[in-house]
């Protein structure tokens, strides 16, 4: 069974819930498994079909995923591209068909200042389709090249809304995260996405295009045989952000690179290419659509600084959320001692594994607080 909205399934009994809140009301929150949540975070989105249950024996089945009732396991199918001779005309036809789907609706693009969203903006300009731009901007030193591109491209839109990232750092306003059915790591980016959704609403934007998945389609090695392709386009978009933040504002958030016409074209154009982490091919191929700086240079800012600042600022709130989570569950994972030990590590160290564990604990505490707050 395929699905468009997330649902929740018991991996042992096959019991299925679309509305998980009903189940949550009848269960004891002590049946949560924080270690599994940490594990799921460590394996990442591309292996989400191997995720372990966090609440009882239930796991979420997101858009595009399939529950195999016979084998009692989740499938997250990889896309098998159609093979044909591709060139720039073919790609442009695919892009035109994609944009045609939104005719009559105000289109927005998430403006990050990176390559993937710049290509979408370049294509909209080429087709003379009016568009709006919404994005996060910061004065931080490491974002100077992104800022430069944001400033160039913001002039191409009917109107651009660049929101100060410093007011919406990761892990900000965690107590405002809406009630959600199942723990999700994306709560940590709630504030910036909520700010962008509100700006889209103000601008009347109905469809917000993102460059998510650009890293997969432009950087990964492309096998000669389409059945060996490892793209999981349904994982490019962020279901939680869509369902919890953008849809309530009347906005569809869609990844341009999730579209099958676009995927087919890029597959056939890049077929047989090796891994290309700097996306040299895409920079050269789309050189007529993007600022020359993105063609000639491969700079890419990292988000460590902005993430560490967000965490340091959020520490008092995180402690409060964990305290409440401990009261609700009695689980020592949220005890004062455990949280002190977690936050007393050197948070200025750029260590991914340490941060993944901290993020998981915060996201779980936010979840428990959210369901308790409004139930």
């Amino acid at each position, binding site marked *: 069974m395929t699905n468009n909205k997330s649902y929740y399934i018991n991996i042992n009994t096959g019991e299925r819930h679309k509305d998980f809140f009903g189940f949550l009301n009848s269960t004891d929150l002590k049946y949560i498994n924080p270690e599994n949540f940490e594990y799921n975070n460590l394996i990442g989105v591309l292996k989400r079909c191997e995720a372990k249950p966090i609440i009882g024996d239930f796991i979420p089945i997101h858009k595009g995923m399939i529950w195999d009732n016979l084998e009692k396991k989740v499938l997250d199918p990889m896309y098998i591209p159609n093979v044909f001779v591709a060139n720039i005309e073919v790609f442009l036809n695919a892009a035109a068909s994609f944009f045609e789907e939104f005719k009559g609706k105000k289109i927005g693009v998430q403006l990050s200042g990176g390559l993937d969203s710049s290509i979408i903006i370049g294509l909209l300009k080429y087709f003379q389709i009016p568009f709006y731009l919404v994005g996060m901007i910061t004065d931080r030193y490491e974002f100077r090249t992104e800022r430069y591109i944001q400033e160039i491209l913001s002039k191409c839109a009917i109107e651009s809304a660049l929101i100060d990232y410093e007011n919406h750092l990761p892990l900000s306003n965690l107590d405002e995260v809406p009630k959600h059915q199942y723990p999700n790591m994306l709560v940590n980016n709630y504030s910036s996405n909520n700010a962008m959704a509100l700006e889209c609403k103000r601008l009347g934007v109905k469809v917000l295009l993102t460059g998510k998945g650009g890293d997969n389609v432009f950087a990964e090695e492309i096998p000669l045989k389409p059945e060996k392709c490892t793209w999981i386009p349904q994982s490019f978009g962020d279901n939680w952000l869509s369902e919890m933040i953008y849809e309530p504002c009347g906005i569809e958030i869609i990844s341009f690179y999730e579209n099958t016409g676009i995927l087919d074209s890029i597959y056939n154009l890049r077929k047989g290419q090796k891994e290309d982490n700097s996306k040299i091919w895409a920079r050269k191929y789309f050189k007529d659509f993007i600022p020359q700086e993105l063609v000639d240079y491969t700079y890419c*800012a990292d988000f460590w600084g902005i993430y560490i600042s967000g965490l340091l600022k959020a520490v008092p709130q995180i402690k409060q959320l964990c305290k409440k989570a401990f009261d609700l569950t009695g689980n020592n994972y949220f005890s004062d001692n455990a949280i002190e030990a977690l936050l007393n590590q050197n948070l200025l160290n750029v260590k991914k594994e340490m941060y993944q564990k901290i993020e998981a604990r915060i996201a779980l505490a936010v979840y428990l607080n959210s369901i308790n707050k409004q139930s």
Partner: protein
Amino acid sequence: MQIISLPINFDKKLYKLNSFFGILLEFENYKPNDANIIIPEKVRKALNYCDKPYTLGNTKIILDSERSKLTNYLLKVFLNLVIIASIINFRLGKFITGIGNTTFDNSIQAIKFFRNNKPGAIQNDLCLPRSLFAASTSNIFKEKGVIFIGVALPSNSMHAWIIEDNIQPDPLDNMWINFQPVAVIF
């Protein structure tokens, strides 16, 4: 080689490199006396390239010049000496570069030699000795090169890289862009 500290104000704190130990110091409510810092033209230009990376030239493909086996052996010995000295003490590492011989035409060749003679897995930890080695063996560094020591605030992560003759000569270094200069060596 000289070192100049370039204090950074970030989030109501001042960050400064200790030029003896090479460690980053953090001060609260401290006002630096910027007026005393005299920045030479060569350094000012290189700083401008760091601040505006899209003005940098692309790393040219330069053929390596022929060297004897003995020269290559001596370069490897010197390379290891720079690494050991840099680990022992920041200033010692800087001092040892004074005995280097300008064997390479530029830092592109010198960095390529350094990378070819140490495993890729440890190269991220060798950014300072790699930069010092290139600075002391590049023929044009003295006239046109600057070593930058940068910090990715607010983390305590640091990095060293070179700007020489309007280019960043290490094509495999894609992280320098995330570090703000806190000191220069030239």
